[in-house]
């Protein structure tokens, strides 16, 4: 089966030829399959934001290519334009993009730009709003009357309503309290499970990624350092630490237990898994 997104030898250089030239993305290649929920992690400046802006054609690579369903998105102006709708990109702090008089109209902005007919737009808006948990009484309100968490979700709905094949969320939980964060993460999972769409979750938090994603892609200094199943990536604990990433606290506890002489499996990244592992060992 063709991967939904295939990145091939992608390079992106800022300020070409100047003394402050930066290689933001260096020779990156990977494939993403249909319906995968992928966590993209890396510290600030690792190139992850630059990378995702290539996936919907917002940035043009210095060299290399991005294939969407086997076809290059940089073929022509129209394919670049189409890519915006096929790969929905929701930026960090997306509430800054709200501008319409009502929540409803704001969510409809993307679908309207796709030149869909009226009924289809209405259907998509209603569907997207229900995914993010906005109630009908929210829809006629001005987006600026919503609470912080609701604004965030309305903005995400605006991208979902384009019904992209691939949804990319850049730090969707930044600045939210634990409640707001859990709501968004559950929503992301539910969205993938019901629509079967591919989702890429860009995050600083390895704990959030551990809880949510099937696969993890780790960026460091513009390169892909690791890409694989969540378990396989997170057990390379020491390497991740040295890249300035914070490994989940449970994982650190388990490596301390191992050092302390308790014979535990150290591939534990969530509290849930940790409880199960220890019960197995200690209850005997």
């Amino acid at each position, binding site marked *: 089966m063709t991967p939904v997104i295939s990145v091939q030898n992608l390079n992106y250089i800022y300020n070409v030829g100047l003394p402050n030239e930066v290689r933001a993305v260096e020779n990156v290649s990977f494939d993403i399959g249909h319906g995968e929920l992928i966590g993209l992690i890396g510290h600030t400046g690792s190139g992850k934001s630059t990378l995702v802006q290539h996936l919907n054609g*917002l940035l043009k690579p210095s060299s290399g290519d991005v294939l969407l369903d086997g076809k290059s998105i940089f073929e022509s102006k129209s394919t670049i334009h189409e890519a915006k709708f096929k790969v929905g990109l929701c930026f960090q702090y*997306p509430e*800054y993009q709200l501008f319409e008089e009502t929540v409803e109209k704001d969510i409809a902005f993307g679908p309207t730009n796709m030149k869909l007919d009226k009924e289809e737009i209405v259907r998509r808006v209603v569907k997207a709003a229900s995914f993010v948990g906005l109630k009908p009484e929210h829809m006629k309100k001005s987006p600026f009357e919503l609470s912080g968490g609701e604004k965030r979700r309305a903005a995400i709905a*605006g991208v979902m309503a384009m019904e992209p094949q691939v949804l990319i969320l850049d730090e969707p939980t930044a600045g939210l309290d634990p409640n707001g964060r859990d709501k968004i993460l559950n929503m992301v999972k539910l969205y993938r499970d019901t629509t079967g769409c591919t989702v890429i979750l860009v995050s600083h938090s390895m704990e959030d990624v551990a809880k949510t994603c099937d696969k993890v892609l780790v960026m460091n200094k513009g390169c892909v350092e690791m890409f694989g199943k969540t378990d396989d990536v997170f057990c390379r604990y020491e390497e991740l630490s040295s890249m300035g990433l914070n490994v989940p606290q449970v994982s650190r506890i388990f490596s301390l237990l191992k050092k302390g002489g308790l014979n535990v499996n150290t591939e534990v990244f969530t509290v849930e898994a940790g409880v199960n592992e220890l019960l197995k060992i200690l209850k005997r």
Partner: protein
Amino acid sequence: MVKDITIGQYFPSDSIIHRLDPRVKIVLTLVLIVCIFICKNIPSLLAFVLITALLVLVSKVPLKMVLKSIKPIAIVILFTSLLNIFYIRGGTVFFEWKFIHITSKGLFTALFMAARVICLVVISSLLTYTTTPTMLTDAIERLLSPLKIFKIPVHTLSMMMTLALRFIPVLIDEIDRITNAQKARGADFETGGLIKKAQAMIPIIVPLFISSIKHAYELADAMDCRCYTDGSGRTRMKQMKTKASDYAALFVSLVFVTALILCNYAPFITGLTFFNTVI
């Protein structure tokens, strides 16, 4: 495009020009700008260009940065120069074809215009390259302080200027971010006529406006917290003292200005009128 604007940028260094009293620098910049328009013959223009080049050299600001300040207006200069060359008639004719006439007068006008505009831009960006925005606004406040007699709120105006300079880069980043977010939702800023293009700006302008108001409210709170009242009783960490070097700079420029005036307007220096062009 917006990121090319260099006005208000500061280049840290410790040249003689950096150390001049900012008030003196502002006055001298104004004087030099007036001088550009006094120059009406080639020797004085050459002298002026030389002085400008000398100032750049002494300021230790890299040539690259100075050139960057000319970049945004380079096309305008080129275009008007070409117009001048092709259309102005007078003096010796070098080339003629249909409606195009290249004449000595056209060439001179183009040369003068280009040299003047470039000098103007270089000198004014030199002021901002060598003076921190805080010093600049402080100096303006002090230079304008006599206006307080007429109840003009000089301090408030200069505070507003400081804040504007502080927030220009913040807002530029914000415009970038909002534009990208709306592009990702399929917004089209390129096609269509003028009205359609203006309409396409709404999704950028509304969020920008809202976040600016938010910036303003939070900034007001932050300033309150730091005991800002109305500027009365405020002192400054960086004092402005007019030193010997400042007087020297003033004196040198006075000599220079006098020389320029003499060689442009004094009929008795007949040797130089030979170069005069009729502008």
